[in-house]
């Protein structure tokens, strides 16, 4: 069992960036699970957070902006035996990749998707993101943001994700548990990881979050969808005064690979290539 899955690559992040905490949490989750690192594929998009694949010594793809989930889907469909983990930012996942977010949830692919949600575009130096709160002044909204932010938790639940959680980079041990259970969960697991951008987001700071976050306790029933949706919109109903952390929704539903007629037979990469006889008999059908 590996003592760390981290690589020797120094992260690109600013000192104090929330992404360090998420990195530590993912590393801890992997250590706890003890998965062979050659059987892990981490896929990132583009952004500060999306560069995370380089900080691990597993297989990884540092792809293009917003396309974490399509690439991750291709990997998972090709080789079901790999543990596939998507990582990226809120811009990457909920903005440019928003279409994929909804449809991947619907498919219930067995992928764990960690979104480092800093409510800002970090790498491009501080423009508004889909989760930027109304009124926030950013480089692209100098007069204050006027668009309603997306609620990734309620969207994920509605779209059909089967494991939906929120964690906080300021509490990496708790976040690690959420990630670990997300990886263990059979199906599409979304973890919205609140991850402050200390350089470009002056509003949503560690302190701002600490005053608002609270952990769901054992009495919370994550399997009840109506209840979960109610909990998911607590950020709106309390005007961002209360931010629940923990597993908000969980459902057991067959994964895409369990339902697909071909993949039911086993991992695609292990299935044999057609023989010459098979090709010939296929062709005979056209004669």
């Amino acid at each position, binding site marked *: 069992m590996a003592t760390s899955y981290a690589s020797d690559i120094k992260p690109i992040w600013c000192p104090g960036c929330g992404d360090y905490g998420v990195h530590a949490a993912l590393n801890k989750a992997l250590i706890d699970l003890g998965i062979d690192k050659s059987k892990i594929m981490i896929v990132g998009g583009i952004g500060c957070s999306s560069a995370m694949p380089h900080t691990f010594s597993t297989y990884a793809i540092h792809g293009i902006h917003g396309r974490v989930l399509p690439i991750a889907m291709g990997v998972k469909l090709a080789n079901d035996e790999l543990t596939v983990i998507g990582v990226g930012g809120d811009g990457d996942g909920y903005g440019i990749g928003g279409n994929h977010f909804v449809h991947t949830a619907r498919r219930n692919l067995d992928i764990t998707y960690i979104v480092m949600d800093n409510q800002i575009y970090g790498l491009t130096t501080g423009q508004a993101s889909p989760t930027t709160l109304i009124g926030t002044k950013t480089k692209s909204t100098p007069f204050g943001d006027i668009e309603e932010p997306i609620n990734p938790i309620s969207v994920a639940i509605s779209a059909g994700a089967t494991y939906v959680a929120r964690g906080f980079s300021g509490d990496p041990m708790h976040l690690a548990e959420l990630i670990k259970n997300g990886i263990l969960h059979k199906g599409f697991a979304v973890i919205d990881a609140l991850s402050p951008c200390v350089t470009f987001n002056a509003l949503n700071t560690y302190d701002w979050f600490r005053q608002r976050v609270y952990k769901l306790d054992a009495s919370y029933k994550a399997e009840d969808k109506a209840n979960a949706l109610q909990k998911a919109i607590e950020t709106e109903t309390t005007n961002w005064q209360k931010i629940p952390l923990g597993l908000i929704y969980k459902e057991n539903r067959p994964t895409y690979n369990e339902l697909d007629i071909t993949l039911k037979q086993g991992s*695609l990469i292990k299935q044999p290539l057609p023989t010459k006889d098979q090709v010939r008999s296929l062709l005979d059908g*056209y004669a």
Partner: protein
Amino acid sequence: MSEVVIRVAGANGDGIESSGMLLLKIAARSGRYVFGYRSYQSVIKGGHVWYQIRIADEKLYSHGSDIDILVALNQDAITYQLKHVKEGGIVIYDPSRTTISGAPQGTKLIGIPLLDIATKVSGDPIMRNTVALGAVLRLAGIDIAVADELINETFSKKSQQIADQNIKAAAEGYNFAGVERTFNIKNDSRRRYVLDGNTALSVGAYAAGCKFYAAYPMTPASGILHWFASHENLGVVFKQTEDEITAINATIGAASAGVRAMCGTSGGGFSLMVEGLGLAGMIEVPIVVVEAERTGPSTGLPTKTEQADLLFVNHAAQGEFPRIVVAPRSAEESFKIASEAFNLAEMYQCPVIILSDLYMAEHIEGVEEIDADGVKVERGRVQAEATNDGRFDRYKITDDGISPRSIPGTPGLEFVAASDEHNEYGDLISDVFAGIDEYVEKRKRMHEKRMRKIDTMLKNEDLFKPELEGGQADYFFVTFGSATMPAKEAVKLLSNEGLRFGIISFSYLLPIDAEKTLKILNGKKLIDVEYNFTGQLAQHIKSATGINIEKRILKYDGEAFTPKEIAEQAKLIANGW
């Protein structure tokens, strides 16, 4: 060559497509060469559609020019198609539904109560197609026993009753008074597959071990989508995606994980795939992308043909990276090219674009030779085991530009595939290192490594030049892909008139071996034939060889070239030279 051209015309929903396919199969199984093409519109019911079936005793490359037998299923069919009937041609129509006036002198009109017979035999009006089919078989001199056999194979899966009714309907048409054998087309005993371009391409990909196809529906590439979707039981995965961006990125994911993977679309979808294409180029993942062109720009004419995306696919995506572009010149070649494409993609770790078009994708061809045994699977430089304790240098700088690749799951060969510029290990050199002398040099070396693969391809493969046919000719058509087919037949028509034309045709377009290409083209009288306004092949040739082909036959009205129209324009050009 003896031949017959049959056009069945009616409305969408009349069942023309399935009876057209049936006729093609019957003619092919009875030992003839066949070619089919369906002209349709972007509507689901109604409209005016036709299906042309050409049957001959020689290999065909076109659906032909004028009509020998018109089967008119409605009044529109008479209005729009009568003028395309050859002098002395035949019109089959239903006198209880349609009227004919103004048919040219000598046209033979055969009125058959198609609908009444269909209703009598089965109660199902759709079977009037089969009645007409029977009549056509008699006129074309094709043995009805073969038809019975194929009708049985086709319909008995549904129900034996429907099969029997169709056999009865065909016999009624075959025996209808006034229907007499008119054409005599020699036959042989060779086996022929009846394949449209999309199917031939799909089967070729499957034969080569393609296990993953991702697509979003778009005419005229949808045939490939339907093929893979309906063959999932053969151990392939088809994924319909939310858009073409997903299709190509999922293909990159699957190929990265080690399976042979392909995606396909038309120009509009390819436009969305462009950024992904660059990703495949940068992280050196072998993918195959099919771009089946239709008439553009924008949504254009969704059900019509064009070859106006050549320069687009040659250059699509920012930056420079090796890619292979290839356009099959027949359905037969589509099989071969699809199977080769995966080897090339994996050997050179780059995207391969198969450039097709509506005519190529949807025309139907009787194919004699499909070399299933000749399909070889070459997976390129895959490292199966870790050889030392250090990190795996996935992007190792090599003399031929090709680096060793590992398949995820292999212990000890982990690496990051990065769309940012990277070093041999895949580590970013785009951030804190960018601009520092040592890394400026590293970027240069990595870019040169990737680009060197083009030299390696040109050195190792003898593919990247056109094919010359008819070396002794006075004039040469220059074509790529689909336009090669009608041009080949135009060569025959011209030779009947004593004009010696040859043809220089490209399937592989990029990279282009400038030296070999120049040698083939040099000193010849060349006429460029393609489906676009700006002569994109001619531009491509000029930029590689300096040869400027001034004489051009260009078509961009959406319709397929007929051999006759190419021949007529060529004659004018030749006479004026």
